[in-house]
């Protein structure tokens, strides 16, 4: 039931956003919002706190995105928070991004990097991932210094982890298991 509702919200977001001229910008902004909500506990708690009035929660969205993001992005996020679905915001946005990529015959590829990727790197990475999965991908990059270096790419259910953090974890496991 929750998946159906999430898919319905994602479809609604896509219906609204595809009328926008700069769909790519909305996608990027929503992707950034999803990451912030996923990684920032205080923000997630505030937006999902049912004891707070809806106006106040939507005010938080306005304060955070107003002037920084496009009005479409701000309104879409505010609409989801106002509907009391803030806890599903990352999943709804992911569904929206998949639907949006699918409309271009692409597959969503979520990439995490310790440092921002330049345009050349993003292009080469998109090509490499497209070659790997067999069709074109829509790249969404998240910068997360905690992975310490390298990249993590997720396309559908496939995760390719080339991060330094992952390698250190593997090394730690090997050291603990080697007796």
């Amino acid at each position, binding site marked *: 039931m929750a998946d159906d509702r999430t898919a319905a919200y994602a479809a609604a977001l896509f219906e609204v956003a595809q009328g926008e001229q700069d769909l790519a910008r909305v996608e990027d902004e929503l992707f950034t919002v999803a990451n912030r909500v996923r990684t920032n506990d205080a923000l997630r708690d505030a937006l999902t706190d049912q004891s707070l009035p809806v106006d106040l929660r939507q005010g938080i969205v306005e304060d955070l995105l107003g002037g920084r993001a496009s009005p479409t992005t701000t309104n879409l996020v505010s609409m989801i928070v106002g509907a009391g679905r803030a806890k599903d915001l990352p999943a709804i946005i992911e569904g929206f991004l998949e639907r949006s990529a699918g409309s271009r015959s692409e597959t969503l590829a979520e990439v995490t990097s310790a*440092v921002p990727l330049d345009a050349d*790197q993003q292009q080469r990475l998109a090509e490499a991932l497209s070659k790997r999965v067999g069709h074109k991908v829509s790249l969404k990059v998240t910068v997360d210094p905690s992975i310490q270096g390298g990249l993590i790419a997720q396309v559908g259910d496939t995760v*390719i982890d*080339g991060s*330094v953090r992952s390698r250190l974890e593997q090394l730690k496991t090997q*050291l603990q298991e080697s007796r």
Partner: protein
Amino acid sequence: MQNLFLLASEVAPGESLTSKNPIIPEIGELSYSLIAFVVLIILFKKFGFNAVQKAMAARTERIRKDLDQAESAKGEAEGILSEYKSQLADAKAESNRIIDEARQQAEKVKADVLESTNKEVADLKAKATQDIETARTAALASLQTSVASIAIELAEKVVEKNLDRDTNKRLIDSFIAKVGS
């Protein structure tokens, strides 16, 4: 009869019994005495001898019975004594047997206790050895975990210090090349 001998001894050789002697009775008196004596003997024989003989026989019989009883009592006493001796010997044998049995029992108990104690000691030793081995393994695992954590912390610091932008770019390029290959 005795009196006759006494009378005879009083008569000197060659001297007649009829001679006057105040001590020696007269023939007539002697005859009367002799007759009276014979009568007395006859009467005694007729009336008293059997009773005396019977009393003597009864006395002899009683004495014989007493002797027989004494003999029988003696035999009985000897039998009882023999029985007591036998019982004493049996008691001694029984006591020796009980002592031997008790000694054997004590030896067995001692052996059992010794065996039990040895087993207990062996069990304790085995458990202690196992505990030591478990503790050693746990300590080793803990040490290994600590060493691994320290090594990883050091590695993270080294990586953090040395992973500059160029190195990270090379890592990213390497990842892209690997994914696309």
